[in-house]
């Protein structure tokens, strides 16, 4: 009985991954390529030398910031699709500091990071105010604010911050060297500071959710804002604070993109990493420690897929298709497991731990009274 159940669980864990690999393989075969070569290209692209591994880590760092921020908003029951925009505004604020402030590196970088957090938090609080004060669902608010952030970035690049020789809407001039995050070594170009910061944030979020009053407030607000309010939780502030903290953390991710990856501000500096973070967090049911681990796998696929295009002429979208199928099938397998295990004959012991997201139209519900 128990052995069977364990087998079932393992099967339902492995099956969606194998199935998504299979679907991807079929797609690859359909366009006349060899799936094994595809896998090889991705893995070589990601791990062939320390430089390539650094490439993976350089995706993992901003992805981790996005994920940890999202863990907070999901805990509060909020669908923060706006995380992309929050990363972008983090990047914008950090870029402003990098362009404007002249200070030695050790002084400038903390300022840049604090400003990036402020930028992300600012964009987060906009989504939050729209949601909790004005009744605009955070999914739509987020989508719109993502687009607005993107427009602002492009405006800056092609307008006030364009290179002296004229804009091509592609990039600001490179930032001064003092404003950039230093790399560990040429063989392993990763920012140690950001890596440490990412680890610190992981632990901080984990303990904040477990051990603080604020974490419990988030959890209660996420599960039932009406009850939480009546139990004395300041749900409006809690929801807003979730957006602010998520935005601030995601903002660091945005800063990393411009202060390390690009050395300048680019269109869409978040690079879709926020959306990828949403997928990761959905897949790991909102767990702050597992999210970075799964995030590493996703970063690997992302980093490896550049090679896919150069070597095999396969569109990068293939990697996204693979990631999408993994998440979709994992979620569906979770459901299947729930269905099988909670069938009348088994004890009602499995309760799915889902990131209790609210549905699209429960808009003004959370904390609308206070």
């Amino acid at each position, binding site marked *: 009985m128990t052995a069977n159940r364990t087998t079932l669980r*393992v099967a339902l*864990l492995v099956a969606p991954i194998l199935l998504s690999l299979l679907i991807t393989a079929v797609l690859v075969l359909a366009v006349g390529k060899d799936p094994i070569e595809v896998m090889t290209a991705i893995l070589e692209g990601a791990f062939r030398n320390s430089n390539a591994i650094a490439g993976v880590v350089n995706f993992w760092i901003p992805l981790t910031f996005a994920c940890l921020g999202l863990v907070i908003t999901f805990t509060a029951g909020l669908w923060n699709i706006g995380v992309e925009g929050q990363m972008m505004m983090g990047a914008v604020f950090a870029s402003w500091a990098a362009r404007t402030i002249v200070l030695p590196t050790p002084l400038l970088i903390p300022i840049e990071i604090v400003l990036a957090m402020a930028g992300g938090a600012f964009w987060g609080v906009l989504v939050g105010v729209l949601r909790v004060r004005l009744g605009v669902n955070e999914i739509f608010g987020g989508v719109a604010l993502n687009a607005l952030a993107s427009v602002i970035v492009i405006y800056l690049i*092609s307008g006030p911050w364009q290179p002296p020789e004229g804009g*091509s*809407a592609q990039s600001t001039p490179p930032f001064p060297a003092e404003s950039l995050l230093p790399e560990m070594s040429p063989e392993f170009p990763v920012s140690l500071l950001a890596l440490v910061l990412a680890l610190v944030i992981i632990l901080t979020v984990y303990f904040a959710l477990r051990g603080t009053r604020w974490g419990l407030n988030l959890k209660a607000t996420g599960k039932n804002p009406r009850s939480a309010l009546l139990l004395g939780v300041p749900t409006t502030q809690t929801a807003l604070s979730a957006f602010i903290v998520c935005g601030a953390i995601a903002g660091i991710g945005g800063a990393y993109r411009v202060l390390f990856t690009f050395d300048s501000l680019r269109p*869409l500096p978040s690079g879709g*990493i926020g959306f990828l973070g949403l997928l990761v967090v959905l897949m790991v049911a909102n767990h702050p420690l597992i999210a970075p681990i799964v995030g590493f796998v996703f970063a*690997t696929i992302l980093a490896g897929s*550049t090679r896919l295009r150069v*070597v095999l002429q396969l569109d990068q979208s293939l990697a996204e298709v693979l990631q999408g199928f993994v998440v979709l099938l994992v979620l569906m397998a979770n459901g299947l497991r729930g269905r099988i295990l909670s069938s009348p004959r088994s004890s009602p012991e499995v309760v799915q731990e889902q990131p209790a997201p609210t549905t699209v139209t429960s808009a003004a519900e959370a904390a609308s009274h206070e």
Partner: protein
Amino acid sequence: MRKLFLAVLIVAVGLLMALPAVAQDDGLTFGMILVGPQSDRGWSQAHYEGGQYVEANLPGSQMLVFESLNSADAPETTLLQVVTEMVDQGATLIITSSDAFEEDTDVVAEAFPDVTFINASGDNAFTGEAPANVGNTMGQVEWAKLIAGCAAGLTTETGSIGYLGPLINGETRRLAASAYLGARYCYENYKGGDPAALTFTVTWIGFWFNIPGVTLDPTAEVNTFFDNGADVVMSGIDTPEVMTVAGQRAERGESVYGVAYDYAAGCDVAPGVCLGVPYFNWGPAYLDIATRVNEGTYTPEWTWNGPDWSDMNNPDTSSVGFIAGDGLSEENAASLDEFIAMLATFAEEHPDADGLPTAFGLWEGPLALQDGTVLAAEGEFVKPIEADNPLTIWYLPQLLEGMVGASE
């Protein structure tokens, strides 16, 4: 439980890493980095086919392609990552085929001093901003734009021409201005119209091609041109929306025309309403560079290559060309041929000096910028390019007086 999932993945990773890497060929391997899709029927495809021309004519050469490197299609990918992959695959020449890559090319090139970089359409090798291993190349498509403008000026009945521009910079301004000069000349001299009554409107979408949410929607903009009374719309962007919409309109019985851009087969989208296409032919320039890189004789330089006036559409000799479309009436085609002959004569009278053009046809005074700044006085020619002189064709700071549309 999740640990198990991770273990499975790690094992899979390990297994696959053990597989052998791909073997290398001899001969020149070069990378071609495109801003749009290689089959965009526009700018990127022209470069891609230029690369294929090199592959066909330089024995042993092999092209590595990375298409659609832009913030919409691959926002997470940087030029550095792509170049690194290409160099790992043995590339010794990298062509970055858009001005969008100009800055990055310089930065990346410093990291790979042994690799030659060519940034098409850029000018950093001319200004001296580029590292020693970066060269530039561009075609003198201004000539072809003059011809295209002429075709539009000959054809318009409403006296209203639309020009769909990409983003605003020196290059796009000078091309729009060239088209305007051609249109104005032919409208006045062949058609007998009043040049002051000719409306030439430029709308910029914001990038080289449509990126929803970032640029204006070119389809909608072309429709707006036609709805507001234009009967000819010229494309200045990398993709063929102008021709698509003109074709649809014509099918509905409207007498409207389009002028394509960038790519020799640009008219194919809607041949019946196409007045012609000014295009680039990158093959000869790329073959020249690739051959010299392969022999080790290439020194990075800035080139601005003109048409072969004896046969503008010769694929082996002409860097830019113009192919007239089926939409052009016989009478207008004859006038256009006359106009082209006139330009050819002009070009012969003003030969290139030190590899630089000395004058372009119709870029002759009196000409003023939109704000009234005199660009050339009566009888003067506007200089094609001079270092530190913004009042040249290459750096054209504004649209010309008489054109409608934003300059910045």
